[in-house]
């Protein structure tokens, strides 16, 4: 019986008490990665409050296995939630470099995506975090609604499926 990545969880339920399941290692690893995305706790500005709201009672992102880690060394995802200033940019870059591979970046909100309301006439903002770190997903909105953030996180999880986790681990 062939089991593809999507069906692993269901297959495990069907085999109580153990047994063997044959699956591609990539599928298993990607399934594990998808269901435990750990972003680094890193709030920059207003959007961070919506990020907090996503983590709290009403939107409850814990149910998707998304748990904030306070240190970049244990995180595999960075949600850049807010305006990046020139003073902050080197710090952000360093944080990104401290995260272990494979790592992903979500630019949350207009500011992080492209400068947002601070694009014109501001002497201290970086016009988009993609000038500092590579970005995987952009979310528009000022601030984006928590539903949008959840959508982005789920989309990112789906995109893992196309990757070869083993190759990524080898670097």
């Amino acid at each position, binding site marked *: 019986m062939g089991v593809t990545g999507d069906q692993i969880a269901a297959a495990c339920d069907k085999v109580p008490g153990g047994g063997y399941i044959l699956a591609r290692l990539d599928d298993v690893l990607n399934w594990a990665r998808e269901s435990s995305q750990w972003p680094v706790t890193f709030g920059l500005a207003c959007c961070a409050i919506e990020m907090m709201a996503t983590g709290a009672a009403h939107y409850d992102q814990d149910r998707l296995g998304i748990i904030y880690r306070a240190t970049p060394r244990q995180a595999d995802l960075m949600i850049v939630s807010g305006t990046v200033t020139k*003073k902050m*940019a080197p710090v952000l870059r360093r944080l990104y470099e401290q995260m272990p591979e494979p790592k992903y970046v979500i630019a949350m909100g207009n500011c992080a995506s492209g400068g947002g309301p601070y694009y014109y006439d501001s002497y*201290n903002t970086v*016009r988009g975090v993609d*000038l*500092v770190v590579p970005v995987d997903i952009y979310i528009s909105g000022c601030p984006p609604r928590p539903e949008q953030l959840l959508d982005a996180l789920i989309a990112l999880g789906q995109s893992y499926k196309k990757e070869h986790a083993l190759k990524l681990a080898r670097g």
Partner: protein
Amino acid sequence: MTTFAQLTHDQRAHLTGSEEAGGVWCLTTDPRKVRALLEGLRPAFDYPEDLTCIDTGGELRVFCRLWSTAQRQAVHVSLTIPRSRGHLPTASDLWRGYEWQEREVFDLFGVQFDGHPDLRRILTWEGFPGHPLLKDFVVDNDDSSWEIPEQTDQEIIDLLSRE
């Protein structure tokens, strides 16, 4: 209970103008007299509400607002200084709250406060080119770099290493 008439009478030597507008007492003075004026205001006006600067194009106007919690009265003190190399005596020893406010005015407008205990840049970083809130500081809207000079912590470490 001080009244406007009494205050302007007591402080007349340190004033160059005074008016009462909308319940606020507005006093104008000049850089040499401001210190004596503020010392005179200190006992009655115990709350340092605001301190800032306005670039009117020709010169800089430094503006400070004090509040009396007992009398529920605000007083505005303002004076003008030349645009470049403006000097003022500090008020941070009278009201500690002005310590950071003066740093901010120094950072954004380049006004020097003589006698300030720790006059460093506060919002921008050490080595930032120019003073951004001056009218002749032009923002490059097409600038899409984030390349900035190396920021060091040396100033802070020096400060902390002082006894």
